[in-house]
């Protein structure tokens, strides 16, 4: 077996070896049981005390959502002004300028919502102050927001009937002190010892071997890169993200980074099952998510290692696969693996340029973000999957003629309505955004913006359409990767994706938590022979079918116009 294939198999095996025990730990930790990290309690007590928080105060689902929205609002307002005035703030050794209002609007939303779309480039568009006190800060807290929201949902199904769903600030703070921060320190140290920079010295200059003068951007990237992956954020310190040799110096760091971005999403599935004392359900959900991932991963690896047919025609040898936009130290196989992982979960960090991937690879990346629930982002992955569970419960209930129930609570019209709206919101914002963009390109090519619509697209034809579709999909899925050829730093894209981002974040968090809160307050019906069990493989497959049908019906036409058309025009 070749070493590249062996590399990704080892990577996935390590992921499970860390992710599954981590999930069991999370279940115990969030339930308040004894865990080995309890020595951090004094730190948490200090944080609560300084913030005026009473950790024993319990909240219902509405209070949870109020607290969540309020703190997110604080970050939005603060971050927006920090970015605009970053040139006047300290810690700016490279003398970078403030962001324009529309760019700052986009950047701050995209970091608050855990997306990290990045219409700026880290080397020139941010200062050390904003990289730390805005971007890295938000990478921690946006991930913790998602995890805390998911724990609220877990809590709703742990007891039979309850409105007491714990304290939001406690879930939020513990996500940071007991999970994100300790893991970030470990990952950052591994990265630092492999060559990722940590020092605060600014740009360097040297004379190359050939005699050219070269400038090198540097900076304390290691800590940033660690949390960007663990928190499924994905925003890079440098413009090209995980492809940059200082962010991702070698094959080992590549493994560490791609493992660290998916362990928490996998852990959350197991945390759910163990928290509500239904381990079998965790394994079924995990099995279906893994099936979904494999169905995207295998063809992606085949398509990339097969190489580009057009370059094959030139007679050049593509021993290991397609190489445009890829780095030699990772090779096409590990790059394909990364591209699948980063799109099924909502990280969106890249170690290659997705724009240059094969058309079918691009399609699988798009599908991964369109479904957005195979493992999914920190906390939000399991929330998205929960929506499909509710729809599956409803549909199968209708099919077998039983009252739809989930874990002993009747699922009624109100819950199904919320679930349907959330499930349909995703295709709606993606397709409307793409349609608006396509309309603007065609009808207003000369609009006087920073980048004219006529020069938005870096590639002609079907691929150009894919670039616009990808940008909207990535924004709606809060993913943050891009077909980076798109000229996206202008008022149109900054504002459009700003709205797509915010719609794609908060409603899909509030919806599932609301459903869970409503269900938890209903009378508990003990399971009987007439109950449709939701922890069986049959039900798992049913959920999978629902996910596929919703995505297929909604997105197939758009995919036909972009990557599919490009693929068939290429192999004809």
């Amino acid at each position, binding site marked *: 077996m070749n*070493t*590249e294939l*062996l*590399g990704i198999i*080892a990577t996935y095996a390590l992921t499970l070896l860390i992710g599954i025990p981590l999930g069991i730990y999370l279940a115990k930790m969030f339930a308040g049981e004894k865990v080995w990290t309890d020595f951090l309690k004094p730190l948490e007590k200090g*944080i609560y005390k300084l*913030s*005026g*928080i009473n950790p024993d105060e319990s909240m219902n689902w509405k209070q949870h959502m109020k*607290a969540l929205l*309020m*703190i997110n609002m*604080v*970050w939005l307002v603060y971050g927006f002004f920090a970015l605009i005035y970053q040139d006047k703030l300290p810690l700016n050794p490279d003398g970078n300028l403030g962001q324009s209002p529309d760019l700052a609007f986009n950047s701050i939303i995209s970091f608050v919502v855990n997306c990290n779309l990045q219409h700026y480039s880290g080397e020139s568009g941010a200062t050390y102050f904003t990289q*730390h006190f805005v971007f*890295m800060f938000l990478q*921690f*807290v946006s991930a913790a927001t998602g995890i805390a929201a998911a724990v609220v949902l877990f809590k709703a199904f742990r007891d039979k009937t309850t409105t007491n769903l714990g304290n939001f600030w406690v879930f939020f*703070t513990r996500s940071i002190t007991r999970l994100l*921060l300790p893991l970030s*320190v470990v990952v950052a140290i591994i990265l630092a*010892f492999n*060559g990722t*920079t*940590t*020092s*605060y*010295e600014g740009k360097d200059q040297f004379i*190359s*071997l050939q005699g050219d003068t070269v*400038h090198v*951007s*540097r900076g304390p990237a290691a800590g940033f890169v660690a949390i960007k992956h663990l928190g499924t954020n994905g925003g890079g310190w440098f413009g*090209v993200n995980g492809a940059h040799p200082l962010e991702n110096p*070698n*094959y*080992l760091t*590549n493994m560490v980074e791609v493992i660290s971005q998916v362990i928490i999403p996998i852990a959350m599935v197991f945390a759910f099952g163990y928290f509500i004392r239904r381990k079998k359900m965790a394994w079924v959900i995990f099995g279906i998510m893994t099936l979904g991932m494999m169905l995207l991963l295998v063809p992606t690896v085949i398509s990339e290692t097969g190489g*580009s047919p*057009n370059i094959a025609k*030139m*007679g*050049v040898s593509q*021993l290991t696969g*397609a*190489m445009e*936009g*890829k*780095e*030699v*130290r990772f090779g096409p196989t590990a790059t394909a693996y990364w591209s699948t992982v980063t799109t099924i979960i909502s990280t969106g960090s890249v*170690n290659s*340029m997705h724009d*240059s991937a094969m*058309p079918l690879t691009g399609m699988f990346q798009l599908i991964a973000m369109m479904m957005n629930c195979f493992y999914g982002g920190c906390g939000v992955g399991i929330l998205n999957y929960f929506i499909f569970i509710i729809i599956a419960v409803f549909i199968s209930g209708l099919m077998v003629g039983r009252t739809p129930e989930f874990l002993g609570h009747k699922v009624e019209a109100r819950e199904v309505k919320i679930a349907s709206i959330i499930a349909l919101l995703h295709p709606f914002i993606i397709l409307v955004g793409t349609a608006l963009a396509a309309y603007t390109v065609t009808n207003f090519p000369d609009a006087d913006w920073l980048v004219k619509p006529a020069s938005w697209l870096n*590639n*002609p034809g079907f691929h150009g359409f894919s670039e616009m579709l990808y940008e909207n999909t990535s924004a709606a899925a809060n993913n943050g990767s891009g077909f*980076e*050829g798109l000229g996206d730093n202008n008022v149109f894209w900054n504002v459009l994706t700003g709205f797509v981002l915010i719609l794609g974040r908060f409603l899909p968090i509030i919806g599932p938590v609301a459903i869970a809160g409503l269900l938890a307050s209903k009378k508990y019906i003990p399971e009987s022979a007439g109950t449709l069990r939701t922890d069986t493989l049959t039900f798992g497959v049913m959920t999978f079918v629902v996910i596929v049908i919703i995505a297929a019906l909604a997105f197939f036409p758009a995919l036909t116009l972009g990557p599919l058309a*490009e693929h068939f025009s290429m192999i004809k």
Partner: protein
Amino acid sequence: MKKYIIQSLRLTGVLMVLLCIIYPLTIAYIGKFTPGEGAGEKITKNGKVVGYALIGQSFTKPEYFWGRPSAVGYNAAGSGGSNKGATNEEYLKQVSDRVDTLLKYHLYLKKADIPADMVTASGSGLDPNISETGAIMQIKRVAAYRKLSDRTVAELVVKNTEGPLFGLFGPSKVNVLKLNVALDELKK
């Protein structure tokens, strides 16, 4: 509601101290004990810094091994890939021109000897590596310009080839800058 605003503001402030000051400074301190002391590992020739081990640089002179094409001309102040799609005609023309250029400088080569990484731009534009095949195809040219035997240069390439991680995982590769520095030092 007002209670949540005040709690939000205070919690934000407290967490900033922990996450934006204590955490990065801890990492920066630990970074001082790494090979490049946290500022990037440098490569020196005769005591003079000639670049960073991880940052590729532009080599155009025939007596040096060449790296991959770069969309940003190896300008490490920024970074970037070409972002060209697989069916872009203009891009395909560019790749085919690169093939022709390589053939012109290496008359002994057939097209099938050229690996894809030598004619395609990397993701970062700063890729420090080329594939083993990419180095091997250049041996004869470099040896001729330096008036060295093919064997001497080939041995140097073998010495500078890094195998898979633990001999098991991932591709093997050649660091172009390290190889070229080794070549220059050979002459003395």
